[in-house]
């Protein structure tokens, strides 16, 4: 019986992993995937559940744990945000682009078995591009987006190079929404994820 239970857990976990492997990384922020509380927008509802008037997006907050701290409290909040579908396009060599609806990748905030739900954890997403450059190929890490613990997306004007050819010099830059954030790519030995701070 315990073996059967273990098998079922593994089967469900594998199914979740294979589903997550097809998640789409956001490359920009638009009306379709603008999660989090919208700036300059009115919402109807309560602290637990609310709907944005501008986009009809349903958000549900369920506080799980709250730990008081010195200056800043911490805690775990589970949030449902309805904007988890992305229309993504793919190049088909037999004709036009193929458009498909896919789940948006939610990185470290994802709850693997609950679609649309997330933890209050900030994280970054980015993609990779490859270009021909001076008889070589350059690989860039680009389309960085910082997703704050509330789910708000902040695209950053930073890029990193994953190859030595034609290396880019965009290690620091502001957020593209003009919200006063400043993105900084770390030194190579610190890892690949950038950091965000307040713009000077």
């Amino acid at each position: 019986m315990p073996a059967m239970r273990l098998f079922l857990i593994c089967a469900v976990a594998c199914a979740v992993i294979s589903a997550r492997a097809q998640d789409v990384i956001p490359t920009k922020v638009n009306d379709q995937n603008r999660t989090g509380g919208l700036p300059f927008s009115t919402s109807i509802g309560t602290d637990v559940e609310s709907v944005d008037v501008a986009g009809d997006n349903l958000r549900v907050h369920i506080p799980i744990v709250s730990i008081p701290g010195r200056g800043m409290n911490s805690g775990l909040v589970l949030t449902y945000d309805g904007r988890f579908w992305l229309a993504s396009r793919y190049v088909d060599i037999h004709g036009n682009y193929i458009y498909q609806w896919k789940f948006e990748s939610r990185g470290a905030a994802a709850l693997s078995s609950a679609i649309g739900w997330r933890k209050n954890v900030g994280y970054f997403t980015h993609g990779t591009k490859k270009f021909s450059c001076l008889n070589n190929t350059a690989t860039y890490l680009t389309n960085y987006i910082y997703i704050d613990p509330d789910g708000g997306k902040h695209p950053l004007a930073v890029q990193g190079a994953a190859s030595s050819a034609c290396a880019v010099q965009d290690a620091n830059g502001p957020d593209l929404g003009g919200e006063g954030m400043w993105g900084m790519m770390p030194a190579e030995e610190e890892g690949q994820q950038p950091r965000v701070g307040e713009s000077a």
Partner: protein
Amino acid sequence: MRLTRPALLLLSAFLISIPVAAQQQPRKDPQALAILAQCQAAMGASAGVRDTIAEGTIAFEGGSSGTITIKSKGVAQYRLDVTSNGKQVTNVFNGGTGHRQQDGKRTDLPVWVAQYQRPEHIPAFSRIADFVLPNTNVAYVGLEDVGSRKAHHIWLWSLPTDGTPPEVEKLLSEFHVFIDAESLLVVKTQNYLFSPEIIENRIPVENYYWDYRTVGGVAVPFRMVRVVSGKKHSEIVVTHVALNVGVADSDFQ
């Protein structure tokens, strides 16, 4: 003393792992290599084919249909002309680069879309032919069911020959081939369609091959079904195939 030995073992394992990782030796599974060699022999890969032209019809799952002309030269030059609803879309691939022509407008395709694009209409000249390249990894996955047939599942991916990180090259080059265990003909391939924005966003595309006929010593499938993300996308029925007709290089410019 009790802790010294495990620590030394760990250190030596770590030191050994550094040159192994740096060399990036490709994986060459002997069983997979043997099956691929037999498959290429059965498919007529060594029949001395320089170029091909295939003509036929294409029916999309949405209801539209049209004609398709596929040209190839070697394994690096590949061109598809699809005419449907009075509109023509041309995709051209030439040695790792590619472009699309539609309504008189030419658009270059991203490197990651074009780099591993090979002729698909004759499997002997598809990505399978890359298995002999020194930077191609070849792994035997197992014997699997493809429809009612048993097929050897073999996985190919490449190591970078430039400065591209290996994990990125693997995303770009991943290719699966399913070879009929009895006839040794290719019954299915699987690779990926890529987003024009970033490499990581990709969806699987499967090609199923039927109705093999021998043309000029080469096994040519006259029916091909494409399945994108698990759903049937289109079906190609080939009506005419010609080999070594002297396809011009200008067709791939």
